[in-house]
């Protein structure tokens, strides 16, 4: 579950100066033909670096993203919900495994990525730094955060890097269950008893701001984003993803009699664009830099899982084990 906001680091203007122009031209021609790049192909350093950063953040977002919904895993009401939530949270862990593997093909071992995560060196989707207070919060996440992630992931699955595309295809197939399950849960609450409806509305009110942040701030048109678009690393702008999400899901929220806590939210019939109150980007920055309601807890949980699992890994590791990167 990853929205693609705030991914890339700033690029030096000279970043491409050292690359071999002939290899670079062949690389770009391959992308122009619509062919995927595979791990052993020549690629510019900048392409490798930005991809590792993006896929790694995506992987962290899956493993950390399993925690807010996991909050309700032992309390899901009824057999069907209990099993489905277990399967859904398990899938998120599975997605992390797939994405770490894709990033590994670019040369960064998984354990190094996990170390960076638990030491606070890596980012992940900001939305998972918010708490899931009630069952309805977990339903909001299953439906709408997954929906937002799917918008971004479907775009990225058409990108240029083979292993990332393969992982995303597998992930998107599983997300369709998540989305339907989440919607099913929300429908039941929204059309249910008074208590259930209120619970659901309160969750929408709590999660709307983080949801709008999920896609990241407006992208500025820069040489930087142009080249990442050209190389098919970044496939859609943050604004495009946000607009697509609003277009697909606001009507579905409204049809359930739920309201969205933004009185300016409406579709402009002339431009076809959704208008909304500008999200508070100062809060976004504050949370992404560590000062959100759950940042410390999320990292502490991952760190604890790593520490308490260490004896298991140490016991199993063959002394002469040699790590190699996955093939594809």
């Amino acid at each position: 579950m990853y929205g693609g906001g705030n991914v890339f680091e700033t690029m030096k203007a000279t970043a491409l100066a050292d690359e071999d122009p002939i290899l670079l031209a062949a690389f770009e021609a391959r992308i122009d033909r619509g062919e995927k790049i595979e791990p052993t192909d020549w690629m510019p350093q900048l392409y490798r670096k930005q991809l590792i950063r993006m896929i790694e953040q995506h992987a962290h977002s899956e493993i950390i993203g399993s925690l807010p919904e996991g909050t309700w895993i032992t309390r899901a009401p009824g057999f069907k919900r209990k099993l489905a939530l277990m399967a859904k949270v398990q899938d998120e862990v599975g997605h992390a495994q797939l994405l770490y593997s894709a990033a590994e093909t670019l040369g960064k071992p998984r354990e190094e990525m996990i170390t960076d995560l638990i030491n606070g060196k890596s980012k992940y989707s900001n939305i998972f730094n918010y708490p899931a207070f009630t069952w309805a919060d977990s339903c909001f996440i299953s439906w709408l955060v997954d929906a937002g992630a799917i918008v971004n992931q479907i775009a990225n699955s058409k990108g240029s890097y083979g292993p990332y595309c393969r992982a995303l295809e597998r992930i998107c197939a599983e997300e369709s269950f998540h989305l339907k399950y989440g919607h099913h849960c929300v429908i039941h609450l929204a059309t249910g008893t008074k208590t259930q409806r209120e619970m659901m509305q309160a969750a929408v009110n709590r999660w709307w701001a983080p949801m709008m942040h999920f896609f990241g701030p407006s992208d500025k048109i820069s040489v930087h984003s142009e080249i990442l678009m050209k190389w098919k690393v970044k496939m859609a702008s943050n604004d495009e993803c946000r607009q697509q999400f609003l277009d697909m899901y606001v009507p579905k929220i409204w049809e359930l009699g739920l309201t969205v806590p933004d009185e300016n939210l409406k579709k402009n019939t002339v431009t076809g664009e959704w208008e909304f109150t500008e999200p508070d980007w100062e809060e976004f920055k504050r949370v992404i830099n560590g000062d959100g309601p759950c940042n410390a807890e999320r990292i502490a949980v991952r760190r604890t899982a790593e520490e308490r699992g260490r004896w298991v890994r140490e016991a199993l590791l063959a002394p002469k084990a040699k790590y190699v990167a996955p093939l594809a």
Partner: protein
Amino acid sequence: MILKSLDPRVTRLSIELSPDESSVAKDGLDQFETYEAFVQSKEGKPFEHAGPVHAPNEEMAFLFAKEQYSRRGMFCNAICVIKTENIKVSEYTDNGQDIYNLVTDHPSGNENESFEIFHLMKRGKQHKHEGSVLAKDFDDAMAMAKKEFQSDKPVFNVWIVKSAHIMASEDEDKDIWDTLKEKQYREATDYKAADKIKAFKENQA
């Protein structure tokens, strides 16, 4: 201070929150070896590369691959795992160029050992099992594969592995993929609620 969470599971972990947590550096030793997992969706279909797992040995790689790549049991007939370092990877070609056109050796005729051949038919897609050949070594297996499997469809990349290096599920264990029909809870098709929305809207109107 012990972390108190909204998640009762987390509270039970009794995590000590200390104000200055020093960074945890893991040594390289913590990283298990890599295995590639292949899934056969149906009897008679070729094994297809599904993705890697990290595991301390082949048996565990198998246990892990089963749940990571075939937990939706209805789409799996068998799986196999191969240690990544045992797979010999050819060059990648592009733009319609067949990798076999770059192979100039002729088969030696020495049928010492069995090798399995996997083809990549389109960049970005999965490698699929094509068949096996008997040969002297990896290069020789590549020459044999060209003789046996080259067609008018270009192949962009070939993986070769000694047949002995493959661990596959046993026929007698096929039932580990049998699932109850109630496993439908993992499928999108199991969540239909259009009626509920319709009834709700009618009530509102």
